[in-house]
């Protein structure tokens, strides 16, 4: 498959900007480090030519930005969406959170994005620059004279390794080849592994993971399913208000409540785990719900179709009983 | 029902993929069956008897070699029971046993006339022998 290059995107962006199709472009801008990219709006061709970045660290899911960015702007925004982003985008359309007419979607094919922590594990700390070369990522650290090469395969983010679909479920235009859904991606492997443990082992596992939470709210802030006008955790009347670490219930329950809130709506984009500074595998909570939904109520992929009825706002008279959940698994 | 029999019953049900409990005893399978008059036990009886574990008489009956596998009962059954598949499962339960081939190669020469398409022989072997 042809790799998407920065030039392919910038030329598309500039031409759409020039012919008036769009009035702004949602893209990536360099942050503090070359691997630390910030989603940002570009309004001029010059800005794009100078500052638009596209490399293997463009993992951020743009769909959520569109909820707010499309407000108060004249004309359309051009958004480059990877296959996984299009699912989130569709889900937001389903929930009426984005006005479709305000967005010009250019689907870009994706072979998987890199994960800086995986690279760091190979090269060690002190990364000063990374460049994307044909044979891999050239990583320069402040401790080494020569850059180290990390293969794309070794650098690939966990969520991309078990990518559920390379297919764009929504776009106006496509750059690169259209891919396929990948039903054999084994994304529930780790969930199944946990399910096979004893309750004590599971408890120990989750306690170990969740104990590291510093309640920075990054997972919530990045989650494309979390676009509430007012989050329950910020709402004093919700009974779950809790903005900062405390010893109270809301804190411990934060991740469970959050996972339940997005259950049936989560497209499994994996952003929560990507941004977690403590590397808590939060996607394993969401995937548990997805796996359960698939087994209990039939395959359902949030965002696959606009307007689909999410499993939690639906039912059949023959649904299994909560008590049967465990019988069925033979546990 | 003794144990051996209930195992066999379960095996036949599993092999056929048929759920005999879906039958509502309308008899449309038997009304439809072109081989009805050749059979000692009729399609609806296959369903009923398998459900009740009365397998011996079925397995001994020549009825299992009379089903034409025309699938008319399968298509016309209002409940999707698929009696023909049960007949086949009972027949397989018989001919898979040692020495129970219903048709043996030595039976063939005298019955073949020269126009008979080999399709008939091939099919008969698949139906009557393992």
């Amino acid at each position, binding site marked *: 498959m042809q790799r998407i290059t920065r030039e392919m995107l910038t030329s598309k962006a500039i031409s759409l900007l020039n012919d008036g199709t769009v009035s702004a472009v949602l893209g990536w801008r360099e942050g503090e480090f070359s691997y630390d990219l910030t989603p940002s709006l570009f309004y001029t061709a010059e800005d794009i030519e100078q500052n638009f970045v596209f490399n293997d660290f463009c993992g951020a899911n743009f769909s959520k930005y569109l909820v707010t960015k499309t407000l108060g702007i004249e004309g359309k925004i051009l958004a480059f969406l990877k296959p996984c982003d299009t699912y989130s985008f569709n889900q937001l359309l389903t929930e009426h959170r984005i006005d479709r007419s305000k967005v010009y979607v250019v689907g870009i094919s994706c072979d998987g994005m890199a994960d800086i922590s995986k690279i760091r594990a190979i090269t060690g700390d002190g990364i000063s620059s990374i460049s994307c070369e044909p044979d891999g990522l050239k990583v320069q650290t402040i401790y080494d004279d020569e850059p180290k090469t990390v293969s794309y395969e070794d650098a690939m983010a966990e969520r991309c390794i078990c990518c559920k679909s390379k297919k764009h479920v929504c776009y106006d235009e496509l750059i690169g080849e259209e891919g396929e859904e990948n039903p054999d991606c084994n994304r529930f492997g780790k969930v199944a592994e946990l399910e096979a443990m004893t309750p004590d082992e599971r408890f120990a596992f989750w306690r170990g993971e969740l104990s590291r939470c510093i309640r920075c709210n990054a997972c919530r802030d990045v989650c494309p399913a979390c676009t509430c006008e007012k989050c329950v955790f910020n709402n004093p009347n919700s009974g*779950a208000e809790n903005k900062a670490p405390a010893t109270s219930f809301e804190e411990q329950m934060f991740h469970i409540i959050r996972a339940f809130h997005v259950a049936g709506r989560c497209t499994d984009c994996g952003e929560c785990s990507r941004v977690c500074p403590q590397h808590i595998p939060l996607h394993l909570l969401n995937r548990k719900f997805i796996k359960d939904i698939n087994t209990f109520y039939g395959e359902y992929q949030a965002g696959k179709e606009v307007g689909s009825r999410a499993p939690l706002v639906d039912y059949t008279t023959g649904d299994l009983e909560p008590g049967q959940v465990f019988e069925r698994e033979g546990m | 029902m003794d144990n051996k029999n209930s195992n066999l019953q379960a095996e036949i049900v599993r092999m056929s993929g048929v759920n005999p409990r879906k039958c509502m005893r309308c008899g449309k399978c038997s009304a439809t069956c072109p081989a009805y008059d050749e059979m000692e036990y009729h399609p609806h009886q296959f369903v009923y008897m398998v459900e009740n574990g009365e397998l011996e008489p079925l397995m001994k009956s020549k009825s299992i070699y009379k089903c034409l596998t025309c699938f008319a009962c399968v298509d016309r059954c209002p409940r999707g029971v698929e009696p023909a598949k049960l007949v086949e499962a009972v027949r397989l339960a018989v001919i898979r046993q040692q020495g129970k081939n219903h048709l043996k190669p030595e039976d063939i020469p005298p019955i073949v006339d020269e126009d008979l398409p080999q399709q008939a022989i091939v099919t008969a072997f698949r139906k009557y022998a393992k």
Partner: protein
Amino acid sequence: MQVNEYKPLIVAFCCNWCSYAGADLAGNNRLSYPDNVKIIRVPCSCRVNPMFVLRAFQRGADGVILCGCHPGDCHYTSGNYYTRRRMALLFSMLDYLGIERERTRVEWCSAAEGAKFAQTMNEFTEAVAALGENKRLEDLRCKE
């Protein structure tokens, strides 16, 4: 009844139309069940937010049970069907986190099933009592 010093705290959410009435019937018929069962009345089992269940656990409940009308008999026609899905998923998640599955339960109980209500509460209390105090949810975050 077994003599047990430890009395687990059980919170029961009962829908107004079937289960709360069933609990009343249990009372009318003087069918006893442990006093550590405390009932909260909700209009329909579908009013029970998973947060309520978690809150109860966090505040010290040892078991939480939801009671609603039998499927197909919901006063609001479909409320308990939503409950069924929500709680199936929530309980499965709690189990996934290592919280004993015996601590959570959904039971359908009609206004005529006073005896079933009492029996359910007896069984559930006993099952929870056998587990001992609920520490896990509170402890989930705090590594020793």
